């Protein structure tokens, strides 16, 4: 799918008429949020948004690389990396909310897949061997997988 800035802006403007989602919700507000259903343009809008966010992730790759190297060469602490990942996702949504759009570089395609994959690995890490489930990783296994993704990132997105 090709990025179309004009269409993206148009879709965002139409969305702006509806209520913006809030972060903290009462039980009633949460239920109301679930009542909301995607309209016909929702999936196209989500695809454009994902492209902008992928662009932001790639543009910050040096910072990611630095954090990944720190993780590989020291003790496992992925909080900074996870926070960076979340902050960039949030930043993309904030830009959209203010109707500030970027022109995604086609070279960024796939970078978000790799960074999402890497961050998802943390959900499967269990530092304590006595509590580790069969599907969970030890530090050694986790570092090996991070290394593999890191090599691919550096090769594809120098």
């Amino acid at each position, binding site marked *: 799918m090709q990025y179309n800035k004009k269409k993206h802006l148009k879709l965002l403007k139409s969305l702006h008429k509806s209520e913006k989602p809030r972060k903290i919700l009462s039980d009633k507000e949460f239920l109301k949020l*679930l009542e909301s259903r995607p309209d016909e343009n929702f999936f196209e809008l989500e695809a454009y948004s994902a492209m902008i966010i992928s662009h932001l992730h790639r543009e910050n790759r040096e910072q990611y690389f630095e954090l990944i190297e720190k993780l590989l060469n020291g003790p496992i602490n992925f909080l900074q990396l996870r926070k960076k990942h979340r902050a960039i996702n949030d930043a993309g949504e904030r830009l959209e909310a203010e109707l500030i759009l970027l022109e995604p570089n086609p070279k960024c395609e796939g970078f*978000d897949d790799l960074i999402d994959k890497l961050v998802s690995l943390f959900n499967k890490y269990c530092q304590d061997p006595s509590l580790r489930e069969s599907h969970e990783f030890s530090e050694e296994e986790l570092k090996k997988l991070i290394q593999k993704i890191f090599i691919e990132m550096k090769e594809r997105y120098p």
Partner: protein
Amino acid sequence: MNFNTAFAIALTSTVAYMIYFNWIQGFQLVHHYPPRIDEWGNVNNGGSSNVGGYKKRAGPKSITITGATNSGSERNLIQNVYSQISNLLVEGTDWEITAWSVAKHAHHGPDFGLDPTKYEMTQTDLDSISVNGLINHINQNGTLPNANYVKALQKRWKVFAEHKNVRKCGIQPVMAEDCHVVKHDRTRIFLPFKSDSEESFTGYQLTKNQFQNHDKNGIIGKNYKN
């Protein structure tokens, strides 16, 4: 007496009893309760844990603590702390929302609109649970997720799973576990239930990219073990 007070008294009594008992026995006897919180990180499990996922009403696993046998896995340890919170059934299914799985994923509460500060918890507590896991978070003197917070998040999971606008995606792999997956398009929140045990597994908001990939391939999290 409200639930929080009862919970705090029960927890304090259990820990005090365990400290006293372990002091008297020097850990030489067989224990039939979980280790005290500050020993959770020192347990040694003799075998691989639960390859096929937890079975409903499965018995406790044997865990050795400094030479003694103790009943407790991650599940049991957490479950014992929140034993006063009942599991919730998702209407129209056999799926159960267990208090222990909700507590284990307490760090995802804000994805469901919960404010941790309303429950005497901070974002730092949630960050610590997310990085260290709940048990190591407690071992490192972290705050135990408030029982009311666990109950509120459990209720949100139930409301979510039962809502008419939440899509039932069928059985799909989630981090290499076969799960019944339900997902809400607008919020990108998903909730999986393990297909073998029918128990809740996790629940959080997918990124836009993960959401689209899941729509295309029906997979969440690659299976790196095979």
